[in-house]
């Protein structure tokens, strides 16, 4: 663990933040490796923005320590921290031109006016806004303002860039475009990006590491694949995509019995005992008409079709399982029609490969 902390650009050690009776961040410890694109993902009120503001120095932790590049900056004001923030509302200075906005940080660092303006020009070039340098922020569109805010932070070449829902105020098309642009810029400049968002798709498409936050704590951190394929908590399983969760009991090595008595093979359950909750993603399940043989080694549950919605690219089924749960199944539309054997009201079998079974802790 010591080695990772040394490599970490940003390290939080047992950080808590309380506002009166409300605990926004609860004993949080995390390390963000140098040069990574790190997303903090969670619903509003989960503490992600407060965590970011503590890294930036805008909030003092109630307890714990904040380290940047190995040194303790917990007591340092924002202007003595080598990180820059892209604010959700952009917070561009309305009385200064775009160029002056971008040069603001450099001028404070006593870079010299000419040099500051030159570097500001380069930063504007990076975000493809060289042509608006002389304008005032109010004369720009939302997307342009967002890119100016990005240039204003990047031009200082900080250790890390903190982005607080930077795309939240933009429309969907622009958001998609800027997601790609942000990712490209991060790869170009190679500095650590800490990105706060409540949009799972945004986090998954951009971040190397995603930390899913809930109630002031990190539920699980890992790559998008990790979190999606092997969520460790029900919250993560449901927050990222759609999950089918089933109550079960471990009854042998890698074997579980669901509450309605079905025997399933769950490699992830190795070493566990007692009650668990297992899950499987809707697109991993294949539906078979009642009576068709289950392929060897596959897990199978029985159920009845409640809803079959034809969406063009896929057909979305809701199946009432024998145990009572409603399970979601996405079937690719390969036949060009809705299979007769899977119509509403039919008895069906849900089959999937054992390795697609994940385990979230009970409860």
């Amino acid at each position, binding site marked *: 663990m010591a080695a990772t902390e040394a490599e970490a650009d940003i390290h939080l050690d047992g950080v808590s933040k309380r506002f009166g009776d409300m605990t926004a961040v609860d004993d949080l410890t995390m390390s963000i490796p140098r040069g990574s694109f790190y997303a903090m993902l969670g619903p509003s009120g989960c503490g992600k923005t407060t965590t970011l503001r503590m890294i930036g120095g805008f909030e003092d932790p109630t307890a714990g320590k904040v380290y940047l590049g190995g040194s303790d900056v917990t007591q340092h*004001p924002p*202007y003595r921290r080598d990180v*820059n923030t892209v604010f959700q509302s952009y917070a561009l200075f*309305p*009385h200064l031109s775009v160029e002056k906005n971008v040069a*603001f940080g450099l001028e404070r660092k006593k870079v010299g006016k000419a040099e500051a303006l030159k570097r500001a020009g380069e930063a504007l070039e990076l975000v493809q806004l060289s042509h608006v340098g002389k304008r005032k922020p109010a004369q720009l569109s939302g997307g342009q303002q967002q890119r100016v805010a990005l240039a204003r932070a990047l031009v200082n070449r900080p250790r890390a860039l903190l982005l607080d829902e930077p795309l939240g105020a933009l429309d969907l098309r622009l958001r998609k475009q800027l997601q790609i642009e942000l990712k490209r810029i991060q790869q170009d400049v190679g500095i650590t990006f800490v990105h706060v968002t409540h949009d799972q798709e945004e986090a998954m498409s951009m971040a190397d590491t995603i930390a899913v936050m809930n109630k002031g704590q990190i539920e699980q951190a890992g790559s998008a694949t990790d979190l999606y394929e092997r969520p460790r908590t029900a919250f993560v399983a449901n927050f990222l995509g759609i999950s089918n969760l089933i109550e079960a009991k471990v009854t042998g090595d890698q074997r579980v019995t669901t509450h309605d008595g079905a025997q399933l093979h769950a490699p992830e359950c190795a070493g566990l005992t007692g009650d668990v909750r297992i899950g499987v993603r809707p697109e991993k399940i294949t539906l078979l008409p009642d009576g068709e043989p289950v392929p060897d080694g596959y897990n199978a549950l029985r159920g009845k079709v409640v809803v079959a919605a034809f969406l063009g690219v896929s057909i979305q089924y809701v199946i009432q399982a024998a145990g009572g749960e409603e399970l979601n199944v996405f079937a690719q539309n390969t036949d060009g029609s809705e299979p007769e054997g899977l119509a509403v009201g039919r008895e069906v079998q849900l089959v999937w490969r054992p390795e697609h079974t994940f385990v979230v802790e009970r409860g």
Partner: protein
Amino acid sequence: MSLNTRRKLLPWLFIGPGLLWLLLFFLYPLLNQASVSLMTGNPEQGYDLTWAFHNYWDAISEYKEQFGRSILYAGVSTLLCLIIGFPLAYFTAFHAGRWKSFILLLIILPFFMSYVLRTVAWQLILSDDGTVVSFFRTIGLLGDDGRLLASRTAVIAGITYNFLPFMALPLYVALEKIDPRLLEAATDLYASRTTAFRKVTVPLALPGIFAGSLLTFIPACGDFINAALLGTPQQYMIGNVIQSKFLNILDYPQAAALSFTLMLFILVGIFLYARLLGTRNLTEAAI
């Protein structure tokens, strides 16, 4: 009446009453006084329009001292209002929390009482046997027979007190509009709190400083109550001269000429001030 005609008439319907008001009670008296300022004659036989432009020259040369005093007193008071009003407005806008409305109420509370009465109250506060004078005498700021009333200090103090709300309120409005995130952004970009104040807060408060200064300076220039009640003829401002010419001596042409001269001074002053701060601030101050 066609819809189109009605549409064309509608704007006139809206500005009509205000326009009529201005024509009757602003433009007509203004032109009337302009013609009075060019008359000659005396109170007994009446005045005739003789295009006597020398009235202006006579008025300025005779009362240049009072003109100078008006501008000096009003200028110093405006500066004092800014020095006192800025921290007050700053605190109210950023740190007052749930006390905000209460403090704003306190700022406008003096207006619940008549202007003259408020100034008479200052007469009592500054009187020779008042606590302020005896305190100043004890700590040695005033000699044993030193007094505050009937001095330049008293007149400036009175003007500052009476016009402070005109400065504090526009400042408050301008500061209140500043998004706190902008100050966070400034500190994020390596500005200390002092630099953030200098580079972000003050520039964004400029429209308020501009509006507040005008609202204080212009009426203070023409004020006569403070000099009359807290000063002596040695502290009389141009307002006192105009007032006595109009109401006591009945020398209407000179009174009118003095009024127009004061107006001209102020207009030139505003113009220079607007050039200094940038015209954008003037339009923003008006919003």
